[in-house]
């Protein structure tokens, strides 16, 4: 008879770690308690964490509009999910989490589309009896038509219609508009947006009448790199929700934080910024905790965990990427633990990723920053470096500052 020898399967050493680093869904992240909630506002240690501040505002000042700004991979979605979870503490809370990328193509999004998405989700939250109310049924039907479009067959009168031409009651008169001297802060709301707004109000009526606390959390718009597109949605869709008691929290593109016109601060009731996290363990153990919560201590020593934290530059997604690449490197070499060499190889891989696209001008800006010379975010090349995370924005001791991503620094010299 064969002896019963259990075969060692190295995959089982690394798979659980990888699954915790990269769970298949956001719900899994929450169910497994993998999120380390920040314990204060990243810009002010005396203030509550962003998700607590947002939830408090939504609960106390219904109809507030809040913006969350941060670079790619800084943890905006995590903050939105934490806010959502906290808002669930009240039984009358009606919370809607929208990732617009799941619903539509953000690149071809029209004003009014976000409102339609809000209306559709609100309809799902209604009680069955409320859905049967004629006005609500009609409003929902109309909203669906606006969302998906419709075809109406009309009798052909043989004449070409003039597209977009406004015909007034008197055909001999044309409209001549003289602009006013007082320029409005925000452009006029488009007519179709107002139409959608009225339909959304109609659908939300039963919830508003029962004094429910409605909060809509909108994710995905931050992925619009050009801030002008975001501004358009804020001025139309979000403004349409202004006079309701529906609160909104929206993730916004990073460049708006540095906008000289202060659009975010002017438009939103509260704006929160997530800078890159501090990677100095003496100041904060947050990044290390993120890895420990996901089981890093079982596979690597404390020094290497700190190394990953440091070379992530404080970018949460880069931290996860580094841990994952290190684990894969260790597995590749048939090792049972992640060693310094695997961490180093992961850092270099990440650094090389950030090398892509660096021409002479970009390198000059980076060198100036490393030499402690001026780095102006108003310069388009510098702004692009920040958007691409080759340069990271920090907030320490009450001051905004910039630094080259440490993983990029690691490979920069040898690439020249």
């Amino acid at each position, binding site marked *: 008879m064969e002896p019963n020898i259990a075969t060692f399967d190295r*995959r089982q050493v*690394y*798979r659980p770690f*990888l*699954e915790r*680093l*990269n*769970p*298949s*869904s956001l719900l899994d992240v929450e169910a497994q308690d993998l999120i380390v909630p920040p314990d204060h506002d990243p810009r002010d240690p005396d203030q509550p964490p962003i998700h607590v501040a947002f939830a408090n505002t939504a609960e106390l000042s219904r109809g507030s509009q809040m913006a969350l700004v941060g670079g*790619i*991979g800084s943890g905006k979605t995590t903050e939105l999910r934490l806010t959502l979870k906290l808002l669930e503490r009240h039984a009358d809370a009606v919370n809607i989490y929208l*990732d617009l*990328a*799941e619903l*539509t*193509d*953000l*690149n071809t999004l029209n004003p009014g589309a976000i409102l339609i998405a809000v209306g559709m989700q609100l309809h799902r939250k209604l009680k069955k009896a409320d859905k049967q109310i004629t006005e609500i049924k009609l409003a929902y039907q109309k909203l669906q038509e606006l969302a998906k479009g419709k075809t109406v067959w009309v009798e052909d009168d043989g004449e070409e219609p003039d597209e977009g031409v406004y015909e007034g009651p008197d055909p001999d008169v044309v409209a001549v508009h003289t602009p006013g001297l007082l320029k409005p802060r925000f452009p006029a709301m488009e007519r179709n947006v107002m139409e959608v707004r009225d339909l959304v109000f109609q659908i939300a009526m039963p919830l508003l009448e029962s004094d429910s606390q409605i909060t809509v959390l909108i994710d*995905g718009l931050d*992925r*619009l*790199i050009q801030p002008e597109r975001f501004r358009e949605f804020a001025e139309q869709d979000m403004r349409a929700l202004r006079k309701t008691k529906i609160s909104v929290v929206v993730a916004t593109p990073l460049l708006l934080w540095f906008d000289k016109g202060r659009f975010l601060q002017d438009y939103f009731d509260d704006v929160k910024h997530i800078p890159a996290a501090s990677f100095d363990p003496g100041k904060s153990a947050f990044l290390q905790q993120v890895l420990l919560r996901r089981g890093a201590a079982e596979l690597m020593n404390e020094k290497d965990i700190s190394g990953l934290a440091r070379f992530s530059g404080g970018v949460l*997604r*880069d931290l996860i*990427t580094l841990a*994952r*690449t290190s684990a*894969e*490197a260790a*597995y*590749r070499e048939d090792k049972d633990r992640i060693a310094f060499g695997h961490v180093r*190889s992961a850092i270099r*891989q990440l650094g*090389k*990723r950030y*090398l*892509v*696209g660096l021409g002479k001008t970009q390198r000059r800006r980076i060198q100036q920053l490393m030499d402690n010379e001026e780095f102006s975010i108003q310069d388009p090349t510098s702004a692009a470096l920040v*958007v*691409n*995370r080759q340069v990271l924005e920090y907030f320490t001791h009450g001051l905004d500052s910039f630094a080259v991503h440490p993983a990029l620094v690691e490979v920069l010299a040898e*690439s020249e």
Partner: protein
Amino acid sequence: MIDFSATTAFRLVRRLVMGQGTASMYLLIYDDGAQLAIEADLQAEVEVQMAIPLPIGRVSELLDGDDSLGLAGAGPIRVLRIDRWSRDLVALLDTHVIRLERAGAQFLFLTTPALAERLLVEAPNFRNRLTEILRIIPDDLSGGGPH
């Protein structure tokens, strides 16, 4: 082009086996003329190591049909060729990369060095969410060197 770590189909699929069940997106850069050999290697390795077929399509297929990004029914591993430049497609990839991630599958994007460089510059969200960027070389040219 940046000298990214080199891999072969055999080694890459070994990693994919370990990461089965977790979403991942690899950008695989091949040298001109090696595309067919690499695709054949990948299909053979996935079949041997994972016992599943490996569908290979063009990334432009993500734009087809009502199901934007065409993710319905995607298998656990999918190869998508990026063989021409399309600004619309890159914009779609960049803003909707989260949907690929949430599909829970392993996506292998195959492209040339020139297209990879343009893509990485113009799609920062996509770049940030990539699991890894690797240079892939045919198995018979590996010489035992790559990872």
